[in-house]
């Protein structure tokens, strides 16, 4: 109980229970077959439930699993059985919404597979080794998508659209910083990015 809130795994499965992207953070499942067995049991026991409007929850082998579906994508987040259910649910919501943002609302398997790199980066930004990094979907999606190009690269190497993207990124970043930090330091960051241009 004194431990930090933690997540044991995050699963993104399709409507037949096949993996789209999964990430395990706990040693509870050592082999791929035990992982697949867990996924199968979670999938079969949840597939009939209606977890589209609100996230649902179930218990599996001393774990709590919070899940939510969108079209043919099934999102799951697992935590230990003494974990605060609402924390696990927050992680799920962050993941779910961030994927929604990254796929621009087209939440289906085809779109997800085509943007698998984004989804993998998204998983990487939410949880690191079981410890929650970030739960705000906008921040997660921002971290994943915003930096398509190295801002340190000379502008001449960038196309116009890339340059625009870079500018937009800087803007959002300074806005983000404004939100997070005090107004004073926010200005400073904003000023710096302008100078870079």
């Amino acid at each position, binding site marked *: *109980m*004194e*431990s*930090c*809130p933690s997540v044991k795994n995050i699963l993104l499965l399709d409507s*037949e229970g*096949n*993996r789209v*992207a*999964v990430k395990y953070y706990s040693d509870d499942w050592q082999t*791929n077959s035990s*992982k*697949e067995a867990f996924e199968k049991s979670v999938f079969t*026991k949840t597939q009939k*439930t*209606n977890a589209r409007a*609100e*996230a*649902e*929850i*179930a*218990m599996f082998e001393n774990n709590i699993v*919070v899940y939510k579906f969108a079209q043919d994508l099934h999102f799951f987040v697992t935590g230990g059985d003494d974990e*605060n*259910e*609402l*924390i696990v*649910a*927050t992680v799920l919501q962050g993941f779910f919404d961030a994927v929604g943002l990254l796929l621009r609302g087209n939440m289906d*398997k*085809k779109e997800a*597979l*085509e943007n*698998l*790199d984004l989804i*993998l*980066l998204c998983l*990487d930004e939410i949880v*690191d*080794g079981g*410890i*929650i*990094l*970030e*739960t705000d979907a906008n921040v997660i999606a921002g*971290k994943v998508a915003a*930096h*398509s*190009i*190295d*801002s*340190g*690269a000379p502008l001449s190497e960038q196309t116009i659209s890339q340059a625009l993207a870079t500018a937009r990124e800087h803007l959002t970043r300074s806005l983000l910083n404004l939100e*997070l*930090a*005090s107004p004073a*330091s926010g200005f400073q960051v904003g000023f710096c990015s302008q100078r870079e241009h």
Partner: protein
Amino acid sequence: MAQFVKKDDDRDEEAEYSPFLGIEKGAVLQDARVFNDPQLDSRRCSQVITKLLYLLNQGETFTKVEATEVFFAVTKLFQSKDIGLRRMVYLIIKELSPSSDEVIIVTSSLMKDMNSKTDVYRANAIRVLCRITDGTLLTQIERYLKQAIVDKNPVVASAALVSGIHLLQTNPEIVKRWSNEVQEAVQSRAALVQFHALALLHQIRQNDRLAVSKLVTSLTRGTVRSPLAQCLLIRYASQVIRESSMNNQSGDRPFYDYLEGCLRHKAEMVIFEAARAITELNGVTSRELTPAITVLQLFLSSSKPVLRFAAVRTLNKVAMTHPMAVTNCNIDMESLISDQNRSIATLAITSLLKTGNESGVDRLMKQITNFMSDIADEFKIVVVDAIRSLCLKFPLKYRSLMNFLSNILREEGGFEYKKAIVDSIVILIRDIPDAKESGLLHLCEFIEDCEFTYLSTQILHFLGVEGPKTSDPSKYIRYIYNRVILENATVRASAVSTLAKFGAMVDSLKPRIFILLRRCLYDNDDEVRDRATLYLNTLGGDGSVVETEKDVKDFLFGSLDIPLVNLETSLKNYEPTEEHFDISSVPKEVKSQPLAEKKSAGKKPTALGAPPAAPTSTVDAYEKLLSSIPEFSTFGQLFKSSAPVELTEAETEYAVNVVKHIFDKHVVFQYNCTNTIPEQLLENVVVVVDASEAEEFAEVATKPLKALPYDTPGQTFVAFEKPEGVPAVGRFSNVLKFIVKEVDPSTGEAEEDGVEDEYQLEDSEIVAADYMLKVGVSNFRNAWESLGPDFERIDEYGLGPRESLSEAVNAVVNLLGMQPCEGTEVVAANSRSHSCLLSGVYIGNVKVLVRLSFGVDSSKEVAMKLAVRSEDESVSDAIHEIVAN
């Protein structure tokens, strides 16, 4: 994978757009060559990495060679300035988890990124580097990590802090040096940085209670920005509460006000965490509980399933300890019985069953009946367990509850579920006398159509024990004999046993039972035939001499008090001779766990004049050794051999330990000696024992050791006579005497002349525990009941101040030398009282059971109540004397 592809083939065109259709490891590894191109195509490289990650994610594994190849190729990609590609590079490096010699290749690139101007690089490079690094590398980058912790960019700071949490497991001494920086980060304005810093700081200081307490005190007064950090703080605060309550019993609970304040936080996560923390406080009062229960009750009617689940699960736990506090929520709970989410519904029902009052039972059962049909077996088992405890709580309601159980017993269900129901009915029959007849009939009906052999045999056995004691035993015979006609061999055999039990107990049924048993003589299974023949013989159904009534009952109802493993070994060793196999010679002591229940009835008849049977399997060797020595062969059977006790310090010239062999009238000390000096040969080795402090012992024999060469252990023995059956105690001082002869190390030959010498050994002792055998019982309660209160002795003792309760329990268990039963030797952490169950066999083959109740007060004074039951009054007193001394 193949299946996955095939399915896609069959489906319509839309699905075939999958970018990974027909993907193959070999081809992707080929593609990875683009990483080596002089002109990097970052888009293409990203795609290939994605494919590699996809394969890994699907459970594909790379061989060592493949992984190394990919890793080296990937390192080339650090040349590209494309952020997207770089991020994929970070990901794949983490997935490949390179070995330490490979890590060196990327270290410099990652360190460069760690100090780059681009924050994304920095944060990610820190995480990657910390993931793959080892201790030596860590000292190199430590400086940068410390800077990163206090970096003004929250993402970078969080990355460093989270990496610190992971590194603390492997390199604690390094991470502990960062506490100043971490302390600073706790004050950060960025919400998540504060959360991660708090987690790391607490882990660094977790063994320093005072520091944790100070940390919590300062933060509960300050500002905590993110709900996650707030949850963390609640956990730490309740830890402080738990630890402080161990020291001071009275007074106000610290931080309770803080927890209560968190119930009004705006984030549900925090409200719930606080409510849960309050319900889990040690010895929480109902006044403290009320505000927490109130917010949980509000959650019960939330539209979010997760919130309802969290609340009902917590309330369910509270219901176990404070049922009254939860009754206010009963109306909300009842509406949850029909919840879409079956986990929530089940938790609601079980809570209701725990808190419900007697008058509400019938209504509740009606609601549950509708609910049972559409939930999974695992939930049903939970409900069955809850109903069983409800029934034990309200015995008057057994009728409706028993009906419910029998109804669900008839419905479809798996083995575990049926077993739970049968177990529940059996427990109810045992504990509620009124329920016996109806319960037995329900079980009879169940075995008429039962597909589980295990359950049938269990029920038949139970029927055999309980059936004959009912008002009309004959009505069960039909059900039992039907089994003989209809079932498989295993069930038939146990049905035969059950019939025999009826025959033995109910005289009026005997003739009819004989007829049925004789029919079984023609069964086509030999086990069934054998049993039928055996029972006909013992019950006198074939006109032969009938054994005494008592023996028959002992045989039929007494349980086997010998571990089956031991019996098996003994039977294997038995060689057919004139002498019959004597079951009493089978060792009874259990090494690992108690297997057989010891019933006094099962053993008494055989104990007549028979020597106490007791040796463990290692003791078998001792027994052989001792009986091969003519001086000791007349001592009878060995009762117990102690574990070796060292009589010398480690690494002295001569190593000696002693094993105490206890016989009925004798004690033999076996001294195991080892000579550790290569230049010496010892001859005529004896131990001279001074028994002046052991009045009841008289030396009768000594067996010297002729020669003790270097590094070859040898034994010398000394035997004492003592009063028969009396647990005499005493202290013995020992001196090792011998003749030393010098040995030439080059030839190994000893000189002719030796010198007499002696060597002082430590004292040995015979204590009361030496007369006690560790013999477990499987069901302590039954064994306790069956011994009866005739020779029960109860007294209370003060044990004085003790280090801890578990230390006191261990001390008493070791003093008595008895076998702890049912895991009761383990004391729960922080508990203030404990009961411990012990069993053993005392010299003279007297079974002894002990119930110990311990209590500890705030000054660590331990008090103990000792209740002893045994087959002999004097033994019960003797146990008390052991403790009293």
